[in-house]
């Protein structure tokens, strides 16, 4: 494996690290897109671990800072932050194609990185795959049922609710006393996202182009509360067996726990191996998971329609 630092894009403003396999290399490359104000290692080095695991299995990976993040310079085109991020991704694709001859691109991102991946995948037809971690989803009636039902009977949830209410009250009091909250970061991706009908049209378009997707949702995201929510939310879209969905009920939004990150890395590495890689299942991910005492992931179902309503995933029971 090799990790090489590069500058690319207009004015060489973008900074990224390309992970390449030591031996045979796939012609498909995965691009990890930074989330919010986090820079290219990803939350708790999630992108580092993913890139190294994929490269060890033969799939190159690029992780880079979007404009204005980390070591990348600011975008001077006057675009909005969201538009500039999509431009950044397209420039990364241009560069990988021109410099290394890659022709197939998988976009991966967490949170706002997943949204950028979606937007760029819609825009750029060279994208053949997408891994969205807590990306776009719509709340369904069943979401509220599965979200609130466990809370009604949970004393700890009630206590947490009271604590959260008190916390917000204190924050408001501090604001009234002239103490500024440190929430400038929140403004970065504020604003309404696309509505359900637009998303449905875009998912249809992606499937028409045969863009294979892995949609992963965490229980901590707050926007997904059961395994089939994505499917229910877009019931009118014919995914044509191209979208795999995983709901990791017990994990938080940024995979703060090391064991959760290992499971996620294995999940993604297996999916890439199954659908894109011509090489063996990445042993690095399996070894790490075994060392941490985690059970082996089940093999991936070939399509969303084959996903059972309730899946035991790495020792965790998903809610539905």
């Amino acid at each position, binding site marked *: 494996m090799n990790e090489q630092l590069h500058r690319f894009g207009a004015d060489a403003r973008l900074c990224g690290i390309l992970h390449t396999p030591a031996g045979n290399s796939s012609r498909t490359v995965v691009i990890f897109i930074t989330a919010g104000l986090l820079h290219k290692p990803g939350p708790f080095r999630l992108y580092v671990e993913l890139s190294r695991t994929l490269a060890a299995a033969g799939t190159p990976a690029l992780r880079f800072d979007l404009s204005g993040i980390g070591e990348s310079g600011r975008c001077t085109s006057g675009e909005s932050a969201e538009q500039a991020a999509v431009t950044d991704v397209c420039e990364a694709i241009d560069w990988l194609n021109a410099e290394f001859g890659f022709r197939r691109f998988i976009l991966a991102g967490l949170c706002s990185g997943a949204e950028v991946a979606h937007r760029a995948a819609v825009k750029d037809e060279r994208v053949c795959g997408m891994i969205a971690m807590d990306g776009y989803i719509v709340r369904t009636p069943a979401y509220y049922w599965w979200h609130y039902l466990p809370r009604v009977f949970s004393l700890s949830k009630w206590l947490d609710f009271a604590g959260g209410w008190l916390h917000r009250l204190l924050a408001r009091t501090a604001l009234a006393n002239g*103490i500024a909250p440190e929430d400038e970061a929140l403004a970065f991706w504020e604003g309404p996202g696309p509505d359900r009908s637009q998303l449905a049209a875009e998912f249809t378009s992606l499937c028409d182009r045969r863009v294979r997707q892995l949609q992963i949702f965490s*229980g901590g995201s707050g926007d997904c509360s059961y395994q089939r929510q994505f499917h229910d939310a877009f019931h009118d879209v014919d995914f044509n067996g191209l979208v795999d969905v995983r709901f990791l009920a017990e994990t938080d939004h940024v995979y*703060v726990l090391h064991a959760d990150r290992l499971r996620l890395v294995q999940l993604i590495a297996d999916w890439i191996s199954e659908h894109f890689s011509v090489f063996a299942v990445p042993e690095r991910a399996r070894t790490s998971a075994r060392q941490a005492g985690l059970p082996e992931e089940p093999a991936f179902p070939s399509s969303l329609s084959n996903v059972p309503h309730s899946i035991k995933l790495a020792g965790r029971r998903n809610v539905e």
Partner: protein
Amino acid sequence: MLIESFHSGSHGQRRYCSLHRPLTRLVRSTGVVLCYPLGHEYYRAHRSYVKLADQLARLGFPVMRFDYFGSGDSEGECGHERLEDWLHEIAEVVEELRSREPVSGIALGGMRFGATLSLLAAQRIDSVRALMLWDPLAEGSRYIDELQHLHGRLLNDLERFARPRRAEDCSEGEFIGTRYGSRFLRELAALRPDALCTIDDTDIVLVGTRGTDHCEALTDGLRKHARLHAVATSRDYGWQDVHRIGETIMDPDAVRHLTSSLNSVAA
């Protein structure tokens, strides 16, 4: 912003460095090395470090940021096992800066444990003219207690997890998503303020925020030997607040104070 990023060191041990070259015609003779805090605090601090480095470069200082081995964009999977190794790495980065920029003196700086490492490293590096300490940690055992307490709250944070997580869900030596070696934790636990207060004839700029009282133990000791320029601010970064562990710190006032103070004390 002109940032030159590069890897230094041998394959498998390479360190990720970012050099902010001076943005003025008049280049200072003091080079600055910024040392990051550890674990989740690294992510909280990163953007502030970029801003701080940029502001210092605008005043003519060459500034080097770097990721410790096993952290950020550097190679390796876990942090160092010995405190000595972190200090050795800082000394190597100072030499790297000296080899790239014509600097005669050095200023070290950092936030939280990055500030503590700066203090310790300054005792063994020649020509350290100034230190910038941002919410420094003075007592290792207290820091570990804080990490343990915060980690316990994290596992039971129902705004983060759908249901409480168990201690068995975590790896050995894991606090807030970062694994620390047992030997390092033992050495950290033995760290006392008096070990940090042996700096002579150095200008020390110290910014202490609300909600951290480590600084009190340090200031008296530092005053005895060095020239201390301490400022307490009303900002609270919420170091012990489980709901803020993912929050990026952006404090222009602290950056301004650190840069203007260094500007006045360093050549």
